[in-house]
């Protein structure tokens, strides 16, 4: 079972090492990880996807909370949150396939951000399954390079993950 955690941390050097180190030391598995600063420049937010049952999830959250630089840990349930990943995919094309690739990109509401004679760079955002599906379709044309970010996620509605509990 996969869980998505939003972890608010101090925006200081070394904090990511502490978080990542905790996962390896305790034998927890990170599926993906994304970090960035929040609306408050003193605070960063790490989105971590971790696999495990409820007991593992509970331990992960408790152990994260023990880190002095971790301010808050929230579980974002799949149905109640918006999840996004971004991918850049370089697809090999020639005059005969370019149009078809562009059509697929259109269907997925992705963007072409670079055009070359023999390749296109596609920028796609969406949840994991959408990006997987698109990757599948583009594969037949030859994917030369692909890079994906970790997932970022946010609660739907007014509920927010903030430093102070409401």
């Amino acid at each position, binding site marked *: 079972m996969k869980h998505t955690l939003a972890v608010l941390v*101090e925006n200081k050097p070394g904090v990511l090492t502490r978080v990542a180190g905790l996962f390896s030391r305790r034998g927890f598995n990170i599926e993906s990880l994304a970090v960035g600063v929040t609306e408050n420049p003193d605070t960063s937010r790490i989105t971590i996807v971790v696999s495990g049952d409820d007991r593992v999830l*509970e*331990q992960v959250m408790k152990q994260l*909370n023990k880190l*002095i630089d971790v301010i808050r840990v929230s579980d974002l349930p799949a149905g109640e949150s918006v999840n996004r990943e971004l991918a850049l995919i370089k697809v090999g094309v020639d005059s005969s396939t370019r149009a078809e690739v562009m059509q697929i990109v259109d269907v997925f509401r992705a963007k072409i951000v670079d055009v070359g004679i023999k390749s296109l760079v596609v920028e796609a955002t969406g949840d994991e399954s959408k990006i997987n599906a698109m990757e599948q379709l583009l594969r037949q044309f030859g994917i030369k390079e692909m890079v994906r970010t970790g997932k970022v996620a946010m609660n739907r509605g007014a509920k927010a993950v903030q430093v102070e509990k409401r």
Partner: protein
Amino acid sequence: MLDKDPVFKYGDWRIMAKTKMSGAKAVIESLYKENVEVIFGYPGGQVLPLYDALYDADIRHILVRHEQAAAHAADGYARATGKAGVCLATSGPGATNLVTGIATAYMDSIPVIAITGQVPRPLIGNDAFQEANITGITLPITKHNYLVQESGDIPRIFKEAFYIAQTGRPGPVLIDIPKDTQTEIIEFEYPEEIKLRGYKPTYVGNEQQIKKAASLILKAEKPIFYVGGGVIFSNATEELRAIAETIMASVTTTLMGMGAFPSAHPLSVGMLGMHGTRYANYAIQESDLIIAVGVRFDDRVTGKISAFAPNAKIIHIDIDPAEIGKNVRVDVPIVGDAKNVLKTLLKYVKPEHAKTETWNKKITAWKKEYPLSYKKDKLLRPQFVVEQISEVCPDAIIVTEVGQNQMWAAQFFNYKNPRTFISSGGLGTMGYGFPAAMGAKVGKPESTVIDIAGDGSFQMNSQELATVVQNDIPVIVAILNNGFLGMVRQWQELFFSRRYSETCLEGSVDFVKLAEAYGALGLRATKKSEVKDVIEEAVKSGCPTIIDFVVEREENVSPMVPAGAAINEILDLE
């Protein structure tokens, strides 16, 4: 740089707001603010400015002979006094030598402040001479650590470090200080307040949960307290005793909890687990309610976890939420300080509710039937030595090494008070006892401090004889000299058909001569009749003393739960 430093006296009342001083002096001034009276340390290139500031500071510095001993001594000081212990080492090898001591303190939740020098900031990351990434190395074995990036942060970092080390679930904190930050001039202002958004330990237990616990207690017919180091750290021994006597429930302690409840109390069933008493293990296995306080359900305690206390509901009181539910399922979790929670719990239980009479009779019968024992013959057996120490020095602080000596010290000394049993429980660090005893004696000079040692363990830090002699720290080392790495030999005897692979230490050293070479007192006992006399002589001498007790070589620690068995599957090895 240093000559620009204004002259002032340490601890001067005038040093209040914003006095200019070097980073090194700011360290000393911060230590004053934290009421540090002693540091265990060892100098080197990257702490020269710090040592220069120490030169005329009003803080006692004890020069150890190996940095590992500095960390253990700070740890022993902390365990004996309840205050944070401080150790200091240079960068690189000095810092890495602290690592075993820091890990030992971490596993047992001991407040230790480790200060290390670091190469100057411009050199960090360049593999400079004596550079080691000690904050990286100690990441998993510290509660928190700091690399000083700006000299002006020194006061804040020290304030936070002492706070973090000593509050919540205590633990070691390391502060790595680059040499150039030690010489820079800063404006010293010790912060009044601490701003740590991510650190707010919970001291007060949830009242609803405590009520739930009370209702379980009132219904229980076979309750038992299972208590550990947390009770000692939160000074909750009186509350524990009051509540145990109110509901008339027996108390078993972990190794770390020895001293939390008087060993001779009628409700005490002693230690549980691998080398616990039969009756403690039986009582746990048959109980219908375990009230666990300041413990972590360690594998040496629970044995085969799936077979642990099959009929019991569990109330778990601990200050660290992550310990609750980590190893066993818990019926009533209570996060909070043990003292606080027990005090509140006491309000909801009354003696007239106790339904434990039948249960207590059963436990008493077990106690009679399966006492801790050993062969009482003419031979000098290690258990006898511990019993004699208990008799001659009933109020001593007992520190142990690791191995059989540690188990016998736990089993056969009659503990009355908290902070009188000091031992490396979690990490099981051989070589811990002697330097920790040194630290305990420095913190509690009026107490008799005895390291119950093994011949193997003692040799891991015996160089500290020089330290105790030079600094006049009269600890007693009682070596239970069996000429073996006894605990390992015991496992080889039981599980490897007596193939004693590399566990024989015969002919290592003459411990009496070793003591004398360092200027300490060396005594020896080879017969039962000599034991009491040498202990008395050691106490009377008032100087650092080694007593070489030449004991039976193949004595075993008994009883014993084999690894992986349920704790009631316990064997007698006499």
